[in-house]
C-alpha cells in the first residue's frame, strides 16, 4: 500500500531557527507531494506542491525537497516565528491519482 509517514511527535524549536519536518513514503515515488498546514479547529491549508522531477521548491520562508532515492520529502521553515506553530501535513496521490493520502502530521511549536 502507498503510505505516508510523518514523525507524530511534536517538534519544538526556538524562534529564529530553521524548522525541518520529515515525510517518508512507501512504494513507488508519487508524481508529486503536497504540504498542508493545519491550525487547531481548522481545516488544512495548502502550502506547497513539489513534483517528482523537482529537487527543491521555495516559497518565501518555506522550502521543500523531494528525494526519490531516500523516498523522502523535507519541509523547512527558515527564521521561524511563533505564528508558524501548527501541524504540518504531508500528502501524496494514491488510487490511480484519484485521491490523496495524508500523513498524520507533525506538530510544530515555535518558542519565543
Amino acid at each position, binding site marked *: 500500500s502507498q503510505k*505516508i509517514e510523518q514523525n*507524530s511527535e511534536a517538534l519544538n524549536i526556538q524562534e529564529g531557527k530553521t524548522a525541518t519536518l520529515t515525510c517518508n513514503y512507501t512504494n513507488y515515488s508519487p*508524481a508529486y507531494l*503536497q504540504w498542508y498546514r493545519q491550525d487547531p*479547529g*481548522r*481545516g*488544512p*491549508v*495548502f502550502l506547497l*506542491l513539489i513534483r517528482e522531477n523537482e529537487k527543491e521548491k521555495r516559497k518565501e520562508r518555506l522550502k521543500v525537497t523531494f528525494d526519490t532515492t531516500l523516498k523522502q520529502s523535507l519541509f523547512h521553515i527558515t527564521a521561524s516565528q511563533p505564528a508558524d506553530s501548527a501541524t504540518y*501535513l504531508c500528502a501524496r*496521490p494514491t*488510487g490511480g*491519482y*484519484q*485521491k*490523496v*493520502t*495524508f*500523513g*498524520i*502530521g507533525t506538530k510544530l511549536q515555535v518558542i519565543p
Partner: protein
Amino acid sequence: GAGVSQSPSNKVTEKGKDVELRCDPISGHTALYWYRQSLGQGLEFLIYFQGNSAPDKSGLPSDRFSAERTGGSVSTLTIQRTQQEDSAVYLCASSVERVGTDTQYFGPGTRLTVL
C-alpha cells in the same frame, strides 16, 4: 471569494440517531471530497465526487455511511444509526477539477460527538 463551508460546525447526537452533514464547495469546483479526522489521527479519506458521481466509495467505513451530491454543488454526508466510534471531525474539501493535478481547499469541518 467564499471558501468551502460546512454545517453544522458542531453536532452532538445520541447513539443510534441519524445525522446529516452538509458541505458547500467553492463555486465552480467539480471535485469534492469527504475526510474524517479522529483525535490524534491523520485524515482518513471517505469518498470523493467528480461532478455528481462518486467513482470511489471505498473509504466509507460501513454501510451506515452514505453521501450524495446534487447539481454538481452541495454534498451531504449521512451517517445512520450513529455509534460512538463515529465521533470525529468530518472535513470536506473541493478542487477545481481532479485530485491528480489540483490543490484541495478544505472547509472548517463538522465536529461530531456521539454520546
